[in-house]
């Protein structure tokens, strides 16, 4: 098999129809003008050419907004029986198609947190069960800045297959053994790509890069050091005043992954479940301990927490920034805060 293949648009629909027989298929769909990742039941529901990215990032498919960690039963003889839902999660084989490079990179970053020294069993099971078919971005929005975070418009890893729209065909790159298997089991749909097709792919990517360069934010190696020096800078107070602590930037961020854990009891008081739910470092309650102490009382400290937990702390911990330049936090911010403006100020641009 050649390194690069072609897949006609018509054949992509056939491939998706075949996936639907075997897998649960997730992809971008449009409802009431809002793009979101949903389970589809027909090829026609897919919206692969949407501008920008779905409102909620694909983390929701691997770390659901709310999920049951286990259920428990308390018996009369004081015994506690715990039921682990992992086996049920394992059964579901899934395909995620139409995810953009920025979001694909976001999953690679989440992997560092959830599949590190300690493995989060729910997350890793879903990751292993899900085939990733990424599509090169061809339509960035005014909020996008993946040129700064180096996570778009194309990508080198994190996918099983990568498709680039070059007109009549998708140019197909293989990112894993699993990707290779998909092609091998559907050889009738693919054909080999030529040097000319490769040149067309490169041209497509250059066109998107050209569009992105309009945000005038160039990648910088100095951000980490400059943030460390700026920790007590006056500039944070302005954003502390403007921020309304709604947490939307947290929830829509492809790499924000904080969660709360709590129990929900049935009225019988004999059965219950332990639940985890997305949480937001912008909330006052986020650092509250039982004695009543709140470690980040000021909004300024919470605004800073998120910025530093994107561009500074993860550099220590994981060796990379935790922002993919998707622009969701800019798009959804109630207070009109533009994270690119903060970055420019810190960098002195």
């Amino acid at each position, binding site marked *: 098999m050649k390194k690069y293949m072609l897949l006609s648009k018509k054949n992509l629909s056939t491939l998706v129809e075949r996936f639907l027989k075997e897998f649960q298929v997730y992809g971008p769909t449009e409802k009431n003008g809002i793009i979101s990742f949903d389970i589809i039941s027909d090829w026609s529901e897919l919206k692969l050419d949407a501008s920008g990215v779905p409102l909620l990032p694909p983390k929701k498919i691997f770390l659901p907004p709310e999920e049951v*960690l*286990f259920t*428990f039963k*308390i018996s009369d003889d*004081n*015994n*506690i029986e*715990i039921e*682990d839902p*992992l086996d049920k999660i394992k059964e579901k084989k899934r395909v995620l198609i139409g995810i953009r490079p920025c979001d694909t990179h976001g999953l690679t970053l989440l992997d560092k*947190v*959830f599949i*590190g*020294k*300690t*493995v*989060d*069993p*729910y997350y*890793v*099971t879903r990751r292993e069960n899900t085939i990733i078919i990424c599509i090169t971005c061809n339509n960035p929005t005014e909020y996008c800045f993946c040129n700064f975070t180096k996570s778009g418009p194309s990508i080198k890893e994190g996918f099983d297959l990568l498709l680039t729209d070059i007109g009549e065909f998708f140019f197909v790159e293989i990112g894993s053994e699993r990707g290779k298997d998909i092609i091998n089991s559907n050889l009738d749909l693919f054909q080999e790509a030529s040097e000319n097709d490769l040149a067309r792919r490169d041209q497509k990517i250059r066109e998107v890069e050209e569009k992105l360069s309009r945000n005038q934010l160039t990648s910088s190696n100095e951000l980490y050091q400059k943030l*460390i020096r700026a*920790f007590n800078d006056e500039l944070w107070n302005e954003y502390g005043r403007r921020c309304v602590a709604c947490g939307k930037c947290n929830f829509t961020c492809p790499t924000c*992954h*904080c*969660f*709360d*854990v*709590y*129990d929900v*009891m049935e009225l019988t*008081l004999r059965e*219950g479940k*332990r639940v*985890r739910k997305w*949480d937001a*470092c912008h909330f006052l309650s*986020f*650092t*509250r*301990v*039982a*004695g*009543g*102490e709140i*470690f980040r009382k000021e909004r300024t*400290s919470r605004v800073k*927490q998120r910025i*530093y*937990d994107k561009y*500074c*702390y993860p550099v*220590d*911990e994981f060796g990379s920034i935790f922002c993919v330049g998707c622009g969701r936090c800019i798009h959804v911010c109630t207070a009109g805060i533009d994270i690119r403006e903060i970055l420019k100020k810190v960098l002195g641009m």
Partner: protein
Amino acid sequence: MKNVYIPNIVTISEIREETPDIKTFKLIFKDKEAQRNFNYKPGQFIELSVFGYGEAPFSISSSPNQQNFFEITVKRVGDVTNALFKLNEGNAVGVRGPFGNGFPTHKFENKNILFIGGGIGLAPLRSLINFILSNREKYSELTLMYGARTPKDIVFKKEIETWKKHVDVHLTVDVGDETWKGTVGVVTVLFREIEVNPKNTVAVMCGPPIMMHFVTKELLKLGFPEDQIFLSLERLMKCGIGICGHCNIGRKYVCKHGPVFTYKETKDFLETAI
């Protein structure tokens, strides 16, 4: 794959009332193998489940020399602790852990140790003190400074008496009563009563942030090097495994990098630790 979120079941085998709002719970794993595999260091913590009410982090207050059970000493301050206080001996709760780094006891060998505790902060220090007393010859002079709100709020009262054979113990209360003949004032007033040589002494403390802030200031004034001051820090450790994001102080997670840090380390956090 082991599911790190699923607790082991333990039985409450004994409950001791320390103060009106603090109890010590002796816990034994239902599964004998789980009990054997439960090895911990002084200063580590567990996540305790009271099923139906949730999970919360607690320091282990027993010494790891105890093989057949372990203990936590709990102050009733929140929902999980309130539910825990309603349970009886024989009831079952859940445990995950142990988590965190614990005290680096090998670094304390051949040194004087100054333990400084405030309120319920004596819980992890009790684990450490009893561990050190069972290996007494490895360490030099031992001193304890402990402060509580009132005489009624002093934890481990009987045990502190037994420590006095080996440890120079100094107590204080914020507010005395008719029975109290000892020192009155915040824990830092005890510095007047003790003599320490900062050159060969480590200071190990746990207590409210404000206490640790002022104690650290005093220690620095006395000439303690920043890397000889050990702090056990409290934050909201929800998952205990560095994923849920609640317990970071700037660049470090209290649950996996801590909860024990030197003062020197905390200065690099960016956010203020104490």
